[in-house]
């Protein structure tokens, strides 16, 4: 550090480097946590997270292809655009594969998502084998996820999509509560089950795609935050979804802060921080599930 920096420089750093980063981290945290909470409800499975539709793997493949093709990492319409397209395309494929005669059984959807996701993960590996060493470095950094180098331009494109999608998901709180009792049971009281699932899956795919396309794949926020909050505010989605929105934002902003500060002046990828917190929690859930894990 060289004395006190000029006020103009400080303003520039805060306004143009730090602030967009915090805004994106918060929005992505909101989006991932809300999507995770919604998907856990739709799948009636506590292990569901925003990755189950293959969205993250699709975005990842889009990103490594963009990097391999030499497209600018931070130019808005190249890498994030291709990652976004890859994410949505994957979600649509998974949904299409799992749908038959207008019905989408959640177990089929889950398996199709896992299958397509692992195929795409292999494809990512394949692209990386072909890639140049410098490119591989960039790919790995992207795949691990992070918020460095976010710009206001990215905020302007991604944040409204994420927040609008998350807000729309909140409108389905009652349907999610009733779906917890089972689809046949929800249909019995008049819930339009297939329509509700379709709307919610589309919103989750959109929110997750917008998030991962600007920040890379950040694991476990969508799994961890809804579960922590379920323990605190209970299973009612009318409270749980807003709590996840706020909690997800706070969690990722803090994790990003940790990523910048833990080994200063170097920076750990925020995906590493969230996974180091997330994996032990995931294992704890796994141990608990045998005793009957409610949603």
């Amino acid at each position: 550090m060289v004395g006190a920096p000029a006020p103009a420089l400080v303003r520039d750093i805060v306004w143009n480097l730090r602030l967009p980063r915090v805004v994106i981290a918060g929005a992505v945290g909101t989006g991932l946590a809300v999507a995770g909470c919604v998907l856990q409800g739709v799948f009636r499975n506590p292990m569901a997270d925003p990755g189950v539709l293959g969205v993250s793997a699709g975005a990842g493949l889009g990103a490594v292809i963009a990097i391999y093709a030499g497209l600018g990492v931070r130019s808005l319409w190249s890498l994030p655009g291709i990652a976004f397209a890859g994410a949505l395309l994957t979600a649509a494929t998974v949904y299409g594969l799992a749908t038959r005669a207008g019905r989408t059984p959640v177990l089929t959807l889950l398996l199709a998502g896992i299958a397509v996701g692992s195929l795409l993960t292999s494809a990512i590996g394949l692209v990386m084998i072909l890639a140049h060493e410098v490119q591989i470095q960039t790919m790995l950094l992207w795949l691990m996820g992070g918020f460095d180098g976010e710009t206001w331009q990215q905020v302007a494109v991604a944040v409204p999509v994420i927040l609008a999608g998350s807000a729309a998901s909140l409108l389905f709180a009652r349907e999610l509560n009733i779906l917890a009792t089972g689809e046949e049971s929800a249909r019995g009281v008049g819930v339009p089950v297939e329509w509700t699932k379709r709307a919610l899956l589309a919103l989750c795919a959109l929110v997750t795609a917008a998030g991962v396309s600007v920040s890379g794949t950040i694991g476990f926020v969508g799994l961890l935050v809804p579960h922590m909050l379920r323990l605190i505010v209970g299973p009612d989605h009318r409270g749980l979804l807003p709590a996840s929105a706020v909690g997800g934002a706070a969690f990722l902003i803090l994790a990003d802060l940790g990523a910048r500060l833990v080994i200063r002046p170097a920076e750990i990828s925020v995906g590493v921080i969230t996974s180091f917190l997330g994996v032990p929690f995931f294992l704890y859930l796994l141990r608990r599930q045998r005793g009957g894990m409610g949603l």
Partner: protein
Amino acid sequence: MSAEALRVAQGVWVRGLRLSAGGREILRGVDLEAAPGELVGLVGPNGAGKTTLLRALAGYLPADAGEVRVAGADPRRLRARNLGRLLAQVPQVATLDLDFSCLEVVLMGRYAHLRPLQRQEGPGDLAAARSALAAAGLREREADPVAVLSGGERQLLLLARALAQDASVLLLDEPTANLDLRHRLAALDLVRGSVALGMTAVAAVHDLELAARYCDRIVLLAGGTVLAAGRPEAVLTPAAIARAFGVTVSTFPDPMTGAIRLSVLGRAES
């Protein structure tokens, strides 16, 4: 209004229903009628088409041919929410290992009566849910999480949820399966109580003696067709039971209740 017209307008009315699933014809021309104030039991062996018929009544399965009317409407043509105001269902399976309270689960039955996006149920919804809980004998459990209820109590709770729905038609799929004696009677008494208030109820029932005692009329299904329909003592004859179930029985009136009782003698020659 003639009795026939009343059945079509308010009850359940099915004519010539054919329905296949997975390339197999499950219902081969089924007629069914249930009028307001009537509990109709669907009986028959496994695979006879009882559950499929109930699903068709709920508009969940498309018919190949024939007509289905529930409270005067074709359930396939109604929006789920509108159907939910006409038709309540007690599902065969529901997940109730949840942290929701009993009152919250019964309030879910009010879904079809809420405006879209309405956040909180109104006093009318709460009153309907509380009175349904009371009718099911679960008034004191209202604040308990549903996860702590016994199997019998859960079934009564699902019945209460269906009654809170304030529909004119009630469909039940095996409402007494896996229940002990006391809860079986409690569940069917609850259904009879609603039927006495003018509801139309159609229930798939495995236990023939229970069906004979509680149902006004019985429809005996086998192989996707109706073998017999009418008053229990007219339908549950040794000949019809032998044809439908492949067992030899002898029937007699219960000395205490007068309802049909069965003595199962063995499997019939096939």
